[in-house]
């Protein structure tokens, strides 16, 4: 039994009399500890898949199951990171990273009494992404890449079983983005959470994922699923190997087909 299961899940937005089919009949399963990427052009329903899996929106047809339970309302304790880092400007980086601890049980009940222990944990995590010296700075004093790294820390601090990433590196420059792939992979290799990455960067998808799902629009649907058999850890050098390039090309061709 897979950790995340979508069976014929659809989502229709209704805006007045207009209805838009954002996602049609999506069926996919994600194993526990698997890192999955969903790629496709904008407006193909990539983010909709995220909203369905986390229960932020209920499916209008079909079924969504996480850890064997049907998802209807927001499921608890998921880690989420968006393109916009959404850090709170009134909190320091450390306090931003600690936010989930103030919300998720059992940490919420222990947080006040064991604050030092949690600060320790947050500092360690910030250390692994190279931000130990910036913990007491405010997010607006950090660069875009640093903000996104703190954002990842916030998404991971409570050790969620499921991490949802919605184009988390989309707003970064190409060099910082490639550096973040390395950071992300290191975190995943260490913790082995189940990851869902939504992106339109095919190289990013191939670098990070075990499985890539290709989506197309109007209506949004999954048109191809490809396993990525590159050995880990993957490095920047991997991205220039023929097999990597071939995989990227295969995905690109499949997306192109829809437009011909």
């Amino acid at each position, binding site marked *: 039994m897979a950790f995340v299961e979508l069976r014929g899940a659809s989502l229709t937005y209704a805006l007045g009399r207009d209805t838009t089919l954002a996602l049609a009949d999506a069926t996919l399963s994600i194993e526990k500890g698997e890192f999955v990427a969903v790629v496709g052009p904008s407006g193909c329903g990539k983010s909709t898949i995220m909203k369905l899996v986390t229960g932020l929106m209920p499916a209008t047809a079909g079924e969504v199951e996480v850890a064997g339970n049907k998802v209807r309302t*927001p499921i608890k304790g*998921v880690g989420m990171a968006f393109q*916009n880092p*959404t850090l709170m400007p009134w909190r320091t980086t450390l306090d931003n990273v600690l*936010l989930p601890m103030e919300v*998720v049980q059992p940490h919420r009940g222990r947080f006040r009494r064991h604050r030092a222990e949690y600060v320790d944990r947050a500092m360690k995590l910030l250390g692994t992404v190279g931000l130990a010296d910036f913990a007491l700075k405010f997010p607006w*004093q950090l660069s875009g890449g640093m903000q996104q790294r703190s954002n990842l820390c916030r998404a991971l601090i409570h050790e969620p079983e499921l991490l*949802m990433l919605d184009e988390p590196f989309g707003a970064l420059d190409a060099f910082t983005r490639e550096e973040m792939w390395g950071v992300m992979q290191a975190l995943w290799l260490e913790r082995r959470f189940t990851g869902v990455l939504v992106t339109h960067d095919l190289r990013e998808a191939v670098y990070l994922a075990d499985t890539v799902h290709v989506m197309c629009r109007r209506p949004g649907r999954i048109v191809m699923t490809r396993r990525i058999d590159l050995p880990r850890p993957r490095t920047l050098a991997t991205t220039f190997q023929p097999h990597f390039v071939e995989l990227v090309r295969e995905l690109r061709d499949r997306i192109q087909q829809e437009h011909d």
Partner: protein
Amino acid sequence: MTRRDALRIAMPWLVIAVLLVVWELACIFFDLPEILLPRPTRVFVVFCQRFDILLAFCWDTLWTSLMGFLLAIAGGMLLGLAIGASAFVYSGLYPLLIAFNAVPKVALVPILMIWVGVGALPAVITAFVISFFPIVVNVATGLATIEPEMRDVLRSLGASRTQILLKVGIPRAMPYLFASLKVAITLAFIGSVISETVGGNRGIGFLMLSAGARNDTATTFAGLFAIAIMGVMMYAACALVEKRMTRWAFRGEIVG
């Protein structure tokens, strides 16, 4: 500090000085009678002569304004949070609030005096009613403009509505609240003085009214200046609190 900076800081004082000089010269040049427009020097003399009386009446106005203002903060925050957090409260109350805000508050004072009599209470209530609207609107705006992603992050952690309000809503609304306080404090003064002028037996508004009735225009003007000085001082106090409390919202000034 360069000379340019020094000049920039001195600018408001220079402008005031020039205005006063023009006023003084105009009075002399056109030979205006004091009952119509007293010269600034004359107003200054009266201001100094009657300083103790002015101070006593100012004190009345100051504390009624502040009482009304504090009530407005409490009421405005509660209502603003309710309106910003709930679409139902919003659609139910917002049109009513706008209608109420459109009512000239001068019209309320006679009614208030029928209800609570003459004295400090109508001034406090008028100050409250007039200064509470901007606070409500600003707090509600702060809450309503929370980024949807911020909300999603908290919802996917399993946060309740109350938690979202405490962790994001209220801190997010703080800069809006403090910005509105600057507007609200000056409005509170207007409220108090209106109430004292329409019908009262105390406060700087009453002092000006009775001085006017005695054709003592210089004292009326002295009162006017006293109100302006109090208003500026209270505004400055609010601006200071604003900067202290929401440093993050002024981040441009800190990191440069």
